[in-house]
């Protein structure tokens, strides 16, 4: 199991750097292929950024990340003490229906976070938000479709 605790200092400073480093190391240790590792990192980046900006809203706080491999999947659990918020309740459809020239600038993060992970779970446990991101691994330890997907993607 891998774990880290990030303190949000309330200044609005980005925690994308340490989150990216942590998730990169977790994915490598779990043997996750490059492309699913990219999407896991993006999801973690978006969820944690959302916690800092909209959960804590400029207040100090803590974001806990814990990850590991359980059976045939990599899991990443992200917890915070901000008010209860279930990212699955966010509906991007109205925003996408508006032409970009008049769209609001934000609101894409959660759509990206939930769009490419194999499974996303949310619970409110003991006064904390718990977001769990899951990427399945094959029996060989490599994410399904990883090699083919990389080939198909080209450069």
């Amino acid at each position, binding site marked *: 199991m891998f774990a880290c605790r990030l303190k949000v200092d309330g200044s609005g400073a980005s925690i994308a750097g340490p989150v*990216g480093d942590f998730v990169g190391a977790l994915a490598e240790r779990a043997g996750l292929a490059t492309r699913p590792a990219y999407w896991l*990192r*993006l999801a973690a*980046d978006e969820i944690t*950024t959302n916690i800092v900006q909209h959960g804590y809203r400029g207040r100090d706080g803590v974001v806990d990340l814990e990850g590991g491999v359980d059976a045939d999947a990599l899991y990443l659990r992200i917890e915070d003490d901000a008010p209860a918020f279930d990212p699955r309740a966010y509906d991007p459809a109205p925003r*996408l229906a508006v*032409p970009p020239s008049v769209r609001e600038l934000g609101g*894409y993060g959660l*759509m990206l976070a939930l769009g490419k992970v194999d499974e996303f779970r949310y619970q409110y446990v003991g006064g904390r938000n718990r977001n769990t991101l899951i990427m399945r691994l094959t029996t060989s330890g490599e994410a399904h479709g990883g090699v083919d997907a990389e080939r198909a*993607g080209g450069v």
Partner: protein
Amino acid sequence: MAFKVRMQIEGSTATIRLEGELDGRSAPELNELVVRAADQRVERLVLLLEELSYMSSAGIRSLVFAHQKMPEEAEILLVGTQPDVAETIRLTGFDRSIVMRETLEA
């Protein structure tokens, strides 16, 4: 990976080359250049993305910002976008508002 961005304006075209990772930390640098390009009233904004390895929603916001800052008839062209970055843009539906090409000459 460290983020690097630089811009050249020639005639009515602004060309911005991005390298590294475009996220919440680096997006403000791109936005500054977009504002400068828009102030020059360029008709074409070319973003060279061959060396851009990561884009979060902060990068998508920068693209929407560029779309709104540039004159309505201006063209925004993304060149050499890597597959995961291109997929990120597609997921937000923004690919319908810009042109994406593999090479500048294509």
